């Protein structure tokens, strides 16, 4: 259940980037989470809600963009997506591949409503 400590890291980033008197205007916190990052987006959303409930960030919600796991095969040149996080080329069976995306856990932006 490391989503809880990841939610805490997200909270820390928000608090260090938004002035304290504007925290209650935070509405959406956007993240990019790879499908093979080992993070369950729904758990992360739940944990974030749990730790921000009854705080000045209680109206903030996570907006998680799920990034597909994509590899590039150096043997046959095929760029391909797979759901299982495999480094194996589905076309030629080579393992000489590079991961292009799908393992990231990236913060992207904070949206605030009606800043005074």
């Amino acid at each position, binding site marked *: 259940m490391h989503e809880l400590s*990841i939610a805490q890291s997200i909270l820390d980033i928000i608090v260090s980037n938004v002035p304290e008197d504007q925290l209650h205007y935070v509405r959406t916190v956007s993240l990019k989470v790879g499908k093979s990052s*080992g993070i369950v987006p729904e758990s992360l959303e739940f944990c974030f809600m749990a730790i921000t409930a009854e705080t000045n960030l209680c109206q903030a919600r996570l907006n998680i963009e799920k990034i597909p796991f994509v590899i590039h095969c150096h043997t046959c040149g095929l760029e391909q997506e797979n759901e299982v996080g495999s*480094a194996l080329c589905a076309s030629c069976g080579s393992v000489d591949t590079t991961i292009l995306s799908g393992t990231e856990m990236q*913060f992207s932006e904070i949206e605030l409503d009606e800043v005074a």
Partner: protein
Amino acid sequence: MSVITIERKVLEKNDEIAKANRDLFRQRGIYVLNMVSSPGAGKTSLLERTLAHLHGRLPVAVIEGDVQTDFDAQRVAKFGIPVVQIVTNGGCHLDAKLISDALQSLELTGVKVVVIENVGNLVCPANYDLGEEIKVVVASTTEGDDKPLKYPTMFRNAGVLIVNKIDLLPHLPSNIETLKKNALSINPKLQVFETSCTTDAGIAEWCEWLEKMCAKKP
């Protein structure tokens, strides 16, 4: 509506501390392993066999991570080496700050290898860089040969796979070749060792590799 753009890793703070840990280890010429596995795969037993084999050859220090108790630190302390126990009190993984704090009470003079034995868990420790040189994932034969496919993130982030409890293979339906094939399909760069802490099979090969890696350090 106003937008603040923050393009950075969510775990950037952890990664910064991990980098400081890594810099400290490198400055001192210490090779650091982050040992991970599911609970009961045999990390502590493997560590004990490793310490026994390396005794008098390579000075090792150990950081133990457990949810509760210092049982593992007590087992390791019998080898007369520096050891510190981190009790996470429910935390499912070690992070870089816990390691940085533990280093305050770990004697590193003369030490060439630090082994961090992580909390038994194949999910959460995968995301946390501790400042190690390499992650060593231990998978035991009793866990089944499909483990790497179920926990790809951990196997992808590791540099070494130790297949432990190979003495039990004759009694199990799992196939070690399938396990290795599955692991290499996730991470073709994995260096693979096969060990038994009961018969000591493979321990010498694993320790020889570790000594070789340490010899490369300045």
